[in-house]
């Protein structure tokens, strides 16, 4: 089992690393615009979750109401390692920063396997150059989302 320190030094999965590169390569002002694009691009909640808040988990650390749920595919060969993770978020249009964080995580993590998601370093939210653009305090919402995503994946893959 790896220690926390080892986990923190781990590389980002490919899609997330590309997003981090996109953010880091533009000036701070443009990072806000990029984040707004992720906010606009966050997929709507699928029909089966609409109107069912009890099926979603609220991320209380976000200052706006943000709900998420994780689903795991059935593995082709029945092994946990093969199961792919799907992420679903609900956040109001009035919370574009929170939606933007969710959009990044969705684009960067959706479709990865269970071990890949669990290996995402806990400090990933700090690798987008967003602290300068939105302030470090606000990033705690994204840290909390990632933490709850991994927690749900851990629970559901163990079941």
């Amino acid at each position, binding site marked *: 089992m790896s220690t926390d320190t080892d986990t923190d030094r781990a590389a980002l999965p490919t899609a997330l690393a590309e997003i981090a590169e996109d953010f880091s390569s533009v000036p701070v002002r443009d990072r*806000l*615009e990029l*984040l*707004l694009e992720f*906010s606009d691009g966050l997929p709507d909640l699928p029909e089966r979750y609409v109107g069912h808040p009890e099926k979603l988990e609220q991320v*209380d*650390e976000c*200052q*706006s109401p943000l709900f998420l749920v994780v689903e795991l595919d059935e593995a082709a060969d029945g092994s946990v390692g093969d199961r792919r993770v799907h992420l679903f978020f609900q956040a109001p*249009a*009035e*919370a*574009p*920063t*929170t939606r*933007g964080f969710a959009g990044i995580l969705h684009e960067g993590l959706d479709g990865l396997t269970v071990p890949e998601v669990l290996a995402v370093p806990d400090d990933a939210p700090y690798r987008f150059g967003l602290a300068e*653009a*939105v*302030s470090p*305090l*606000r990033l*705690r919402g994204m*840290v*909390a989302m990632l*933490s*709850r995503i991994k*927690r749900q994946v851990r629970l559901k893959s163990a079941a």
Partner: protein
Amino acid sequence: MALPIDDNPQFKEYAHPERLVSTQWLADHLGQDGLVVVESDEDVLLYDTGHIPGSVKVDWHNDLNDPLTRDYVDGARFAEVLGQRGIGRDTTVVIYGDKNNWWAAYALWVFSLFGHEDVRLLDGGRAKWIAEGRELTRDVPTATPVGYPVIERDDSVIRAFRDQVLAHLGQPLVDVRSPGEYSGELLHMPDYPQEGAVRGGHIPGAKSVPWARAAAEDGTFKNRADLEAIYLEEQGLKPTDDVVAYCRIGERSSHTWFVLTHLLGFEKVRNYDGSWTEWGNAVRVPVEK
């Protein structure tokens, strides 16, 4: 030169009606010389999704907080932030924002630390403007920078620090957080990341009056009689009391500071902006559950 006061009859009953404008007043005065409209939200991106035409953004965290110390910007930086946005010392500033003007009230409170004389809130804030179908734009105005004097911030009148709150114990304190935060239960969720305080509960003797109770359903402030029913009759506060309000980091309590000071005419209200993130972590301060 200051713009005229909104003579909306609903405002007349408040102690300081000159601190509020209605959406109609703002629509009527948009674009006039001497007026700058400021949007200040909890969410740093909300302005960029669409704002009142001509308004400029002031971000509570990136513009009003010092990036290093846990304090507000100094006079030089404040002058820069306002001057860049075309705000002079005698400009009439109308601030509006999301969440019942929670952050707008916070910005107004910080402007007040610098003694900016004519600063008003848009009653009902961003939500009411939108609900009325009024215009929003994504166009960011190019403000003509003006000179804003370097003013030394005065923290002595409307701001309280931890030691002052310790000395204040036994006198009126208002905790404006949610009931779960007040009772301390919200810090005890197993397996979840914590909010940053090692102790839950409240400052001894503080009364629990969640800040949003001062707002009506449409985000405007409740009328004076309803506000008096909460703060004077139910909580037993008196306008001559020395009152300290606090929340988690000082933003929600700015809203209550505004209500007590400008709407109900309390004479001495201070916002303890260190609030629970400081108190709940400070060594040897008393906590009540």
